[in-house]
C-alpha cells in the first residue's frame, strides 16, 4: 500500500512537472483552467506555427494577414472556414484529443496541423 502511494506520488510529481513545462509553451492550456485559446497566423501563404499543440478544450483562432483570401479546412472536414479575407478570423474549439491536419482549399500547398492532447 505504502509502495503504491509512493509510486502515485512520483507520477503526480512528474505530471506536475510536465504540466509546468507545458504551460510555458504558448497555446497549451493548464488542466482545470478556464478554456484556453491559441492563435495561428496566416502570413505569406503559410500557417504559423505549422504544428500547434493544445490541450483539449482550447479554442484556436486563425487570422489571415495576407492580401489574398485563404481558408482553413481540416482534411477530414471536421472544421471548415469560409474564405477569410485580409484580417478575417476563424475559430474552432477542439474538444477531442487527436491530430488534425488541415489546409487552405484555395491554395492547397498550404498545409499544417493542430495536435490536441
Amino acid at each position, binding site marked *: 500500500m505504502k509502495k503504491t502511494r509512493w509510486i502515485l506520488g512520483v507520477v503526480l510529481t512528474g505530471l506536475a512537472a510536465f504540466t509546468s513545462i507545458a504551460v510555458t509553451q504558448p497555446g497549451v492550456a493548464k488542466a482545470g483552467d478556464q478554456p484556453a485559446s491559441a492563435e495561428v497566423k496566416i502570413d*505569406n*501563404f*503559410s500557417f504559423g506555427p505549422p504544428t500547434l499543440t493544445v490541450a483539449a478544450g482550447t479554442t484556436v483562432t486563425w487570422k489571415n494577414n*495576407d*492580401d*489574398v*483570401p485563404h*481558408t482553413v479546412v481540416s*482534411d477530414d472536414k471536421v472544421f471548415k472556414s*469560409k*474564405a477569410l*479575407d*485580409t484580417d478575417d478570423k476563424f475559430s474552432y474549439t477542439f474538444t477531442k484529443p487527436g491530430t488534425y*491536419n*488541415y*489546409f487552405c*482549399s*484555395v*491554395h*492547397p*500547398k498550404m*498545409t499544417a496541423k493542430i495536435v490536441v492532447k
Partner: protein
Amino acid sequence: MSRFIEKNLEKDGVDRRGFLKCMAWAGTGALCVLKGGVLKSYALSDVMQHNVGDFKGDLSFVQISDSHIGFDKAANPDVTATLGEAIAKVNALPTPPAFVLHTGDLTHLSKPEEFDTLAESLKSLKTERIFYVPGEHDVLDDNGAMFRERFGQGAMGDGWHSFDRNGIHFVGLVNVMNLKAGGLGSLGNEQLEWLQKDVSGLKSSTPIVLFAHIPLWAVYPQWGWGTDDSEQALSNLKRFGSITVLNGHIHQTMQKVEGNVTFHTACSTAFPQPQPGQADSPGPMKVPDDKLRQLLGITDVNFVRGTHSLAVVDSTLA
C-alpha cells in the same frame, strides 16, 4: 533544377537572347507563331520591325485574365480602372477580336457585386462573345455556383465547355475545384473523361486550343503553379498536331514548348505577382506606381488558316 523554360527551338531564327526576351517574366511582350506544331518566337521589339500584315490571320481573339475585381490593396487599389484600360487596349486593336477568353479570377472574393462590376465593365468590349473559365477566387464558399449561373451558360460539370471557330477546337477547362491538401490544380476524372469524348470525333489535324486558369504545366509546383493531372489530359491529346494551352493565375507571361504543345500564360489586368521563387510567397507584388502598367496586359492571338499557325502577342497597358 527548375522545370520551366527548358526547351529552345531550333531553326527558328531566334537566338537565345531573343528567346529569353520572349520568355520575359514581366509582360514585356512576345509574339509566337505556331506552324504545324512548331513554334517560332520573337521578342515584341523585333515584331515591330515586321509588317503587321505578316501576322494577320483569318481569326483573331484575345485572352484576358485575373481581373480580381474587389481587390483594393497596395499592389493596385483600383483594379476596375486597369481592367478598363485593358478593355480599351482590346478595343483599339486593328482587327477586332472574334471573341475574348477570360481565363479566370474575374473577382477577388466571389462576391455578387464583384461579378456585377466585372460584367458591367466587359459590356464595353468590342467583341461578339466572351468565354470564361473560373479561377479559384471565383468559386469561394459556393463551389462556383454563382460563377456558373452568370458566366457558365451551356457549360458542363464544374463549368467546362468546348466550341469550334474557323476549324479550331477550343476547350475551356476547370482546374480550381475540389483541390486536395498538399496538391496542385486539379481537373478530375469526370472532366478528363469528358475531354476525351469531346475530341474523339476530331481529325488529328484540327488545331486545339485549351484554356484554363491554373497552368496546365509545372511552372512552379512549390507555389502551387501547376495542375496535378494535366499530363493525363495532354497525353489523351497526343495525336493532335497542334495544341496551344492558354492559362492565367501566375500574373506574368511565361511560355514553354513541349513537342506539339505550346504553353502560354497571360498577364493579369489587376496586379503582378513575383517571378517563381523570387519572393516569400506568390502574393500580390507592390511595384512603383509608374511601373504597374508595364506589368499588366492582354494577350492577342491570331490564327492563320492553311499554315495552322497561331500568333500569340502579349501587350502591356503601359
